[in-house]
């Protein structure tokens, strides 16, 4: 261990609460941001990708990109919605890649990691959920995911989607109504 103890973080942690968040401009702020959002974003990505390693990779990609582009985003005042949008887009890209790979031939069956074995039941259930959400219009499904998987209030859903609060609520409501119909049909059949 080192001879002396050193505690001297001078950067205020990134405020990701409602008031005055800023895009991280220093490593200390970046580190604080990662700590604050990692669990929420990884869970959100996991709900789409159903693989913890893939979800963590996706979130890492997003966070690293967020820091690399920090000059461009320094005027962004609310970090969290922006990150959710980036993660959602990244997940969509990865799912497209996955589908392309599946079309080009069966993937090798890699040995499952312990973390994958632990999350397997959850992933199976999410596979069923995603099958349902996949039958919704894309924008409605996205609003539902942000609200249900991300646990975001509609205000943040609206910011993440870049739409008004009323539009975000409408998309959610129409999405859930359509989901009701799908569930009803499936129950009947």
């Amino acid at each position, binding site marked *: 261990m*080192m001879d002396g103890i050193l505690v*001297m973080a001078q950067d205020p942690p990134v405020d990701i609460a409602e008031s005055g968040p800023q895009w991280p401009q220093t490593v*200390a702020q970046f580190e604080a941001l990662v700590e604050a959002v990692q669990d929420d974003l990884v869970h959100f990505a996991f709900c789409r990708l159903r693989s913890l390693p893939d979800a*963590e990779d996706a979130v*890492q990609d997003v966070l690293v990109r967020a820091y690399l582009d920090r000059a461009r985003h320094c005027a962004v005042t609310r970090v969290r919605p922006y990150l959710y949008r980036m993660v959602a887009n990244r997940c969509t890209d990865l799912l497209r890649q996955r589908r392309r790979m599946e079309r080009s031939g069966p993937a090798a069956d890699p040995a499952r990691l312990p*973390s994958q074995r632990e999350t397997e039941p959850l992933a199976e259930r999410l596979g069923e959920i995603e099958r349902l959400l996949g039958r919704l219009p894309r924008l409605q499904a996205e609003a539902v995911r942000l609200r249900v998987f991300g646990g975001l*209030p*509609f205000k943040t859903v609206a910011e993440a989607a870049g739409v008004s609060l009323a539009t975000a609520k409408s998309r959610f409501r129409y999405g859930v109504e359509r989901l009701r119909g799908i*569930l009803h049909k499936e129950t009947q059949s």
Partner: protein
Amino acid sequence: MTCRSARRQLADPFDSGDPGQSPDLRAHLAGCGRCAAELEEMRNAVAAIQPAGRVRASADFQERTLTKLAAELDAAQTARPRIRFTPWLRLAFTAAAILGVVAALPYLGTLGTNRGEIALLAQSIDALNGLRSVHIVARMRTPRGDNFESIGAGYDFQPVEMWKEFGATPRWRVENPGRVVVMDGEQSILFMKPDQAVHGGRNAGFVEWLRPLLDPERVLAGELRAAQKGESRAAIRQEGPRVTLTATRKAAGEFVGDWGRNSSVSQSDHTRVYQFDAATSRLTSLQVILHDGGKDVVVFETTDIRYNEAMAAELFTVALPDGVIWGVRPERMPTDRALPATARDAAEAFLEGLAQRDWERVLTVYPATAVPESIKRDGGGLRVISIGVPFQSGLYSGWYVPYEVTLADGTGKHWNLAVRNDNAAQRWLFDGGF
């Protein structure tokens, strides 16, 4: 409230930010079974897509993310090696170095895993923000007029001064009583007083081990990285407004008969004591202590480090005397005479050339447009008594050739000539030791 307007608000009860229902909606739902049933069905549908559990990021997720960022920044640096350093790029590249160390912190021998180091490293990025220039005043135990590498516990202190201006095109100057190096943003010139000069590029190695001090914001990361590699034992301590980094290193190199040991900082057992300002993480002082047996001698110490001084453009130029003797690249040296094939041949060409005042022969190994007057004066007409067997020692990539001569004034000299051929032309060159 109508059913139509009530249904428009049916998302509100699902809002985690404001899950309450308006009094109007509540009243409508209390009296309208159809709308209430619709809300209930929506609740059921949302419940049907609720994940059955929640995952968390792995315990090492944060560390891996920092490592990934470091790799990205390193890759960017590798892909664009000749890119000009804007302030943002300098920030990013410094971050890469620092993050690399952050990722390695758990593996540092004497440094442990205290997050304080991460904070200090991260904060040193901020030290870079707004850094326009640095001016270091120091002193060093070295032979007067020698290069910036030679040290010795027995020498008196000589002044050393360094200036660097940051920005899109960094410029710097390093000076001691015998030498001046300036880098004007595009090229560097080493002026060896009174009559020799050498051209170099932006990264010429004219200032040797002092070079890292020209990037004081990277000193901390560099030292911690060295500790990670096992090249040193490092410790950080904070005392009030001051952070002290102590890095102790063993002499590098394999020595033959101890030749070269303790002749430079790298080739000596030594301790570097850096001090940083805790508030800004800026380097405030450096002391290098040579451990020679049981004796500890300070061989280098800064006496003043000033940041953000205004620097005149003239500082990064050097006035050269008329008739200056320029260094010549090995591949452009004359080839019209027999060239030495071995280290011993090179020593012989130099010494016998001096003995016979055959300056053309000296120039077969002396990489310059002419032989300096000081060498002609001191060496011309010497008598060669012996030239010994070449050997290698320490970190020097050339060869040492023992020699014994009697100078024209009768003085005897028994020393080692340094010669090398590690250049693209593989030409044997005189490199010092006379």
